Structure formats: structure tokens, C-alpha cells
């Protein structure tokens, strides 16, 4: 049977406010346990919440960026359950009246196709604390520093059809919240967390299958693996005559499998009701207009502009627009050298692998956009070949010179374009390989093709890579045929 995968994602983005959503505690990551837990965060008797204006503004920014309707009036509700990391015995969240209503986000897949993913809603809520399970004489330790950190929970429609699409969607959300400056996107620190609702159904069937929720998958790679594993599990289960049960599952990256979290399953009844300590939040049009005016160019617009203005492919444009910093870098390279395609190739190619290898952010790049742009200019004006350029790039990365020109000069890497000089060099090469020249001349077209490469290689070696490859090709052909 042909199966279709149906995925909906719930992404929790920690908002990058200075203080918590309902208290004046700091939200800094990694502080000593419970040193950022105030009376309010601890749920001390008699304490009351007051809403952080910046959390509201950030949620509105997000809503506007996904073309959503921002509710004129949104309401906080209490979600009641007992857990040691939940100090009040309820989480203050939003239920019937979320701040951000229906919106959408376009994602671009590797093959360049674009899909629109619906976003059901996004609402504000407070984060819980953390349970630490190191051995305290058989007890768990509770750290409430994180309790009360503002979260935006972004709920997608079940529009996603594959693990790859899911990753593309999470990457698009990740890029968006970072562009907007509302979340630092640090998945390792839990700033962006993802719950995946996964189900399968026979292709062509209209109703959804029973879904399982995979909780807290915290890297792009694990999202893909966890979903793929879960889809496989469900298909095998159904094909073996079994039934998928609606439950919460946990992805174990070490074993690459999901397993049931039955302990969390027991009869949840959250008893949502409007929080009596908080009043309805009213968003005025004037405020929204002001937020809208403050929005930066969004990834989707930047991507479109890159395609339109620079003629980049949809995929290249998506990759380069994925982070504001990368996009800025690319544009700086482009404006320094005036060649968008070469700039894109170098940024996505050599530069990216260099950064990956050393695990650096684009802001930490050892080669500045101006340096790279200057170097690309030298490729364009034939001062150096692409191959030599790689040497120049490495030298720039190693700090061997301030500019490409300086390195080219110092290392004598300037390309040889003098026809006479090249001809003289070629004559020497051919003389040294007289046997191969004989063979070449005796061979048919097909074989010659391969052998030609040998002579080019020898010629480039003899010139230490500096001979202009175009000229070498042209002159060599003439001499050999001659």
C-alpha cells in the first residue's frame, strides 16, 4: 500500500526578553539553580502576575510576519496540572483567545519548489522549570530559573507531508524568529523546541490517521530522524494488523527510536479557565501599525529579492536568506565584487565549509566580506584562476595578508596570460612527454579527450597553476593537432 505522512508541528520559541513574562526576574541561561526564581516564579502564596510588554510586542511581530490576524483581545488561561517543575500547579497560557490567529509561512525545499504551510495559531505562555535527575539520595532536584520565561507556542496546521518538509518548516521558523530578533534560536539551550504530531494514512484517504506526538525534539537532524523513524513504526504497525494509539512519545537519539511516555499519559484533564489574576490584553491598531513599521525585511522577501535582483536559484536564495547575518554577508560580498553568482558560490561553498569545519558563526568568519569580494574581483579580471583563488582564500583565512591583492603579490600567484610565455612553456612540456604526444596523435577522438586532460595537468603543474587555463587549453590543442 502507498502511505501518506501527515505532520503538524508545535514549536516553542523562548522570547528574547530581558525579564520573565510575569515577573521582573532575569532570563539569562545557565545561572546557578534558583537564583533567578523570584516570589512570583516560585508561586509564593499571595503573589500575582503582571504581563511583560515586550513579550506582547514580540508575539505581535511574529503574527504580522506570518500574515496572521492579531486578536484585538486575547486572554490568558490557566492550564491546571501537578508537576514539580510547575510551581503554581498551573501553567499560565492562552486557550480560546490566543494573541496570534491563523497565518502561514512559505517554505522552499531542496529541489527549489515552494510550499505554503498553514499556521493555526501562536500563543503566549510561561515556560516551566527543570527537573534534574542526578542522584540526590534517590530524589530529583528542581531548578525554577526557567519557570516564567516567556514562550511563543507556534502551532502549524497538519499541512506537512514529509520529514524533509518538517525540517524545512522548522528552519524557516528558526530563520524568521531570528530575523525578527524575538528568539535567539539556540536549540542546544532549548530556546527553540519542537513537538511533532505524526500520523500516516493510505494515499488518497481523506481522514487523518491516529497521531502520536513526539515531544521535545531539539535539533534539525533529530526532527528528520525522529519523524522518519516514527512513520516507519506506524506503517509497520498497521501493516502487521496493529493500531496506532494516540500517545506521547520520546525520541532517543542514541538508539534512533521513539518510545512511549506512558507515565505522562494518565488521564490528563487540564481544566482550562480564564486566569482571574490577569485581564484581557487589548492590542490597539496604532500599536500594531508601529510594530509593523519596525519589522525588518523578512526572509521570504529577502529570498524573492535575491532571486529577482541577482538571478539566484530559489534554493540558493533560500539558503542565503536563512539568517540575517549570512544574507548581510552575502550582500556585502556581492557589492564588493559586483558578481552575485560568484559571490553566492563562494559563500555557500568554500566559506561555508570553512566555517563548518571550525564550527564558527558567520559573524566569526576569519575572511571578511570585503576580503572575499576583493578576491572574487581578481577572478573576474583574470588576475587569478578559480583554482589559485582557493589558495588565496586559504591564505586570507590563515591571516597571511590583509587583502587578496597582497597575497597574490607576495606569493607571486598572478596568472600568466602572455601567449609567448605560455607557448614556450608548452613546448617544453610536450618535449618532455614526446611518447605521450605520439600516442595522442595516433588515437581516435574519444581517446584523445581523456589524454588531453593529461597534458593540461602537466602544463598547469609546470606553470605552478598560474597559466591562464583558457589559454592553455586553446594553445595546447593547436600544438597537439598541429
Amino acid at each position: 500500500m502507498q502511505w501518506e505522512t501527515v505532520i503538524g508541528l508545535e514549536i516553542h520559541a523562548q522570547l528574547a526578553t530581558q525579564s520573565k513574562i510575569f515577573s521582573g526576574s532575569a532570563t539569562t541561561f545557565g545561572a546557578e539553580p534558583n537564583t533567578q526564581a523570584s516570589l512570583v516564579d516560585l508561586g509564593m502564596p499571595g503573589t500575582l502576575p503582571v504581563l511583560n510588554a515586550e513579550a506582547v510586542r514580540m508575539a505581535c511581530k511574529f503574527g504580522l510576519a506570518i500574515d496572521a490576524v492579531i486578536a484585538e483581545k486575547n486572554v490568558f488561561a490557566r492550564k491546571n496540572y501537578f508537576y514539580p517543575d510547575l510551581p503554581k500547579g498551573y501553567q499560565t497560557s492562552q486557550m480560546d483567545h490566543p494573541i496570534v490567529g491563523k497565518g502561514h509561512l512559505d517554505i522552499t525545499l531542496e529541489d527549489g519548489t515552494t510550499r505554503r504551510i498553514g499556521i493555526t495559531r501562536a500563543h503566549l505562555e510561561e515556560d516551566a522549570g527543570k527537573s534534574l535527575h542526578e542522584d540526590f539520595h534517590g530524589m530529583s532536584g528542581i531548578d525554577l530559573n526557567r519557570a516564567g520565561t516567556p514562550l511563543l507556542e507556534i502551532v502549524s496546521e497538519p499541512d506537512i507531508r514529509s520529514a524533509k518538509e518538517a525540517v524545512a518548516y522548522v528552519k524557516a521558523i528558526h530563520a524568521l524568529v531570528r530575523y525578527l530578533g524575538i528568539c535567539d534560536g539556540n536549540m542546544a539551550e532549548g530556546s527553540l523546541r519542537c513537538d511533532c504530531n505524526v500520523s500516516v494514512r493510505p494515499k488518497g484517504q481523506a481522514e487523518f490517521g491516529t497521531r502520536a506526538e513526539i515531544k521535545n525534539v531539539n535539533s534539525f537532524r533529530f526532527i528528520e530522524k525522529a519523524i522518519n523513524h516514527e512513520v516507519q513504526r506506524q506503517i509497520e504497525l498497521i501493516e502487521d494488523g496493529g493500531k496506532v494509539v494516540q500517545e506521547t512519545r520520546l525520541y532517543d537519539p542514541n538508539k534512533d527510536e521513539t518510545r512511549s511516555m506512558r507515565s505522562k499519559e494518565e488521564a490528563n484533564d487540564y481544566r482550562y479557565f480564564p486566569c482571574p489574576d490577569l485581564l484581557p490584553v487589548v492590542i490597539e491598531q496604532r500599536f500594531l501599525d508601529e510594530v509593523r513599521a519596525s519589522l525588518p525585511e523578512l526572509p521570504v522577501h529577502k529570498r524573492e529579492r535575491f532571486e529577482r535582483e541577482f538571478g539566484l536559484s530559489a534554493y540558493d536564495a533560500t539558503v542565503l536568506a536563512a539568517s540575517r547575518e549570512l544574507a548581510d554577508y552575502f550582500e556585502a560580498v556581492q557589492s564588493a565584487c559586483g558578481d552575485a553568482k560568484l559571490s553566492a558560490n563562494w559563500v555557500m561553498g568554500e566559506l561555508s565549509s570553512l566555517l563548518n569545519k571550525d564550527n564558527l558563526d558567520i559573524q566569526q568568519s576569519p575572511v571578511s566580506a570585503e576580503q572575499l569580494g576583493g578576491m572574487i574581483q581578481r577572478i573576474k579580471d583574470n588576475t587569478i584562476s578559480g583554482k589559485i583563488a582557493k589558495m588565496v582564500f586559504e591564505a586570507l583565512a590563515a591571516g597571511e595578508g590583509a587583502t587578496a591583492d597582497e597575497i597574490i603579490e607576495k606569493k607571486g600567484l598572478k596568472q600568466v596570460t602572455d601567449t609567448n610565455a605560455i607557448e614556450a612553456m608548452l613546448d617544453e612540456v610536450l618535449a618532455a612527454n614526446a611518447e605521450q604526444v605520439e600516442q595522442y596523435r595516433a588515437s581516435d577522438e574519444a581517446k584523445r579527450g581523456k589524454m588531453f586532460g593529461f597534458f593540461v595537468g602537466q602544463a598547469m603543474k609546470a606553470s605552478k597553476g598560474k597559466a591562464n587555463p583558457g589559454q592553455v587549453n586553446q594553445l595546447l590543442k593547436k600544438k597537439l593537432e598541429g
Partner: protein
Amino acid sequence: MHQLTLAEIARNLSQKRFSAEELTRTLLARIEQLDPQLNSFISVTEELALEQARAADARRAAGEDGALLGAPIGHKDLFCTQGVRTSCGSRILDAFKAPYDATVVERLAAAGTVTLGKLNMDEFAMGSANESSYYGPVKNPWDPTRVPGGSSGGSAAAIAARLIPAATGTDTGGSIRQPAALTNLTGLKPTYGRVSRWGMVAYASSLDQGGPMARTAEDCALLLAAMAGFDPKDSTSVEQPLDDYLAALSQPLAGLRIGLPKEYFGAGLDPKIADAVMRAVDELKKLGATVKDISLPNMQHAIPSYYVIAPAEASSNLSRFDGVRFGYRCENPADLTDLYKRSRAEGFGDEVKRRIMVGTYALSAGYYDAYYLKAQKIRRLIKNDFVAAFEEVDVILGPTTPNLAWKLGEKNADPVSAYLEDIYTITANLAGIPGISMPAGFIDGLPVGVQLLAPYFQEARLLNVAHQYQQVTDWHTRAPQGF
């Protein structure tokens, strides 16, 4: 000294007839001597009181002359007091020394009041007899075999017995006004949002309101002026300037339009109380007020609505008492669920558990619409009734309670019978309007209270009417025998 009102104390302190410290020592001695009969205090804060009294005397010596400088008071034991046990009348908070002061406590302390102690109350303010306290029932000074009302029963008994001249209370369904009525006091529940709830341990957040209890309206005005006002720490606190409550007291009542709702005088009301209320109406007429019959047709639905909304909010508010960060924790919990279940079962008393369960049920899946939403719709009907009534009249007048103080233990077997005692007071909480109860006579030696209700933020009007009434009557000056 102990017979003096706050206003009289202020004059005496100002004229240096005695010092705040002398007054404090006198009252502390009285508490020690007399409170064992009443059980109105959970904690007596002798050291704190003497320290505050000396500080008040020093401020006075330095030239200050505030109306509450050196005024001895007590706090209902659900206002957080830093470093002092704040028990809420519950075992679960028996060892809880609050790490901060409630806004009300802070403001009154800043005004120079002297805190003599923390007053007994129904556990988590749930009750109307002060019999659900972990620290035992409070007795009514007018008849120690009877209840003082609740939930601010300790505040009421202590003031009525002249152990303190005034105290704070809280009113979620009548918990200031009803004990005031049963002990011959004046007690004001302000408009919801007028007094900060920061540091006031929540029972039902959308209904709870702190307020003053004293013997006279004038004293209530003095306290309210210091307690009330906007607090940025409470989202439901209102940014509206305070009226001058003291200045408003002396306004004449000529032309005051009083509404008498027919629903307040129907079946269930003790006829002798009805007579006393009508005698009070006559007095007010003599002062120039006019009277009109009105109707509050949805009043009869207030009790069911209240007993859904208050327990629902309480069930959530009281979830934080889980034995993890503060408060009672059971011995040797076997696991997490055992920790929760036993700490809460051992820490909470029966009435609290009942209300938590009713509230949990009312909010649970499948019942939310039928109970919680329905109750909130009725709440709007009740508010609409008041809005309409206040188009025609300035204040609404009726009995505070349908019955006189009942015998200790009389209504323990059947919680529902005690719930019905709230009939005249809970509508003000549901609508959020202010209400006051004032002494209006005695029946068989037991006090009767008259309640006045006014539109939002018209506390000044209520205090004014009660004060004018107290200028021509002397019920409020009467003291129980032996105190």
C-alpha cells in the same frame, strides 16, 4: 484606653495623653488576659508591636502627626507579613513565615500602624462561622457559645472585645460584612480592584477584596485611606485616584435615594432582623433620605453561581500548596503522587478539600460549560441587576445576614445550610461593587447588621451614610459584657 476608637486614639496620641508604646502594652496585656476566651489571635507579635510603637513615638516626637501613627491594629492571617507566620488558618501553612509583606501590610506600616498580631480566620477564608480554622473556632464576644461569623471571625471578635480598635479583613462572599454584622462592627468591602491583592493569599481571585473592620465608619475611613490605591504589582488593581473618605463623612444625607430590594426581605429572613433594618431606614429618612422599592431579580441565583466560581478559582489557586517549595510536607513520601496527595490531605481541612473538589469538578472536561460558564453568565445577570438599580437609587439597603449569630457547631453537619447564610452579601462580590455593614440594634442581646451597597468606587458614599447614621444612633458604641 481600650475603649477608644482609632480617631480618638489619634487625638490622644497627638495631645500626648499617652504614648503608642503605653497603648500597645495595655492592649497586649488585654490580649493575653482575654483572648483565651475567644481564640481570635493566631499569632501575637509582641516584639514587632513594641518596636513599631516605639518607632511611631519617635516619629511623633520628630513632628509627624499622621492619623494612624501609633494606631494598634491586627491583620487577618492571610496578609503576608515578612518573617511572621502567615497561616491562612491552615495546617498547610502553620510553619510558613512569609518572605515578604503584602502591599496592605506595607502601606499600613508606612502610615505608622502598630501590628499586634495575626488574626484567626476560616481556613483559606472558606467559611462563614470561623469554625474551619486549624487553630480552632473563634467565639463571639457577645455570646461565647456562638460563632462570630467568618471568614474574618478573628478580626471581628478581637475588635468587638476591645482587644484592638481595628483590623484588616478580606471579603470574598461577605467575609468582612457578615462577621461585622454578627459582632456589632462596621466593616467595608471596597470595590474590586480598590485595594491591592499583592500578598493577600488568594481564595477566589476575581472576588477577593481586602478591607477595613472597626467599630465606626470614621475608623474604617481612616484605615481605607491608607490601605487603598493603585498597586503596579496587582494587574487587577485600578488606577483611579482615591476619594477623600474623611472629608466625605460629614456630607448631609438630604436627598439620598435609598433602594430597598424586595428580594432582601423575603422568605428566609428573620422577621426581627427585618424590623431592625426598617428602624434603621426610618432613622435615615429622618436624616433626609428618600426610599424606593426596587428589585434585584437574579439575586436568588447568586449562591449557586458563587459556589461554582469561588471553588473553581480556589481549586486552581490552592494547587501551589504541594509540599515542594514552602508549607507542610508529609513524612517520608513514597513517590511524587504520594507527596502531593498526603501533604494536601494532611495539610488542608475538610471544608477546603470540599471546595477544591467542587471546583475541580466544575472545571473538568464535559462540565465546564454547564457549571463554570453558566455561573459566569449568571454573574453578568447579577451585575446587570445592580447597574439597572443604580440608575434609580444612590445606595441599596438591606440586612447583612438572614439570621443572628448561630451556635458553635450548629451548621457543621450540613455545609449547604452555612452557604445559604451568604445570600445577602455575595452579590456584591460577584458584581464587584462596594458594600458596608453597620450596627443597627440588638435582638436578644445579639447584634444586627444593616448592609449598604453602592455603585463602583463609591466607598466614600457608603462611609458617609454609615457615619451620619452613627451620629444619631449609639448601637456601634455598645460593648459586649466582660469586655
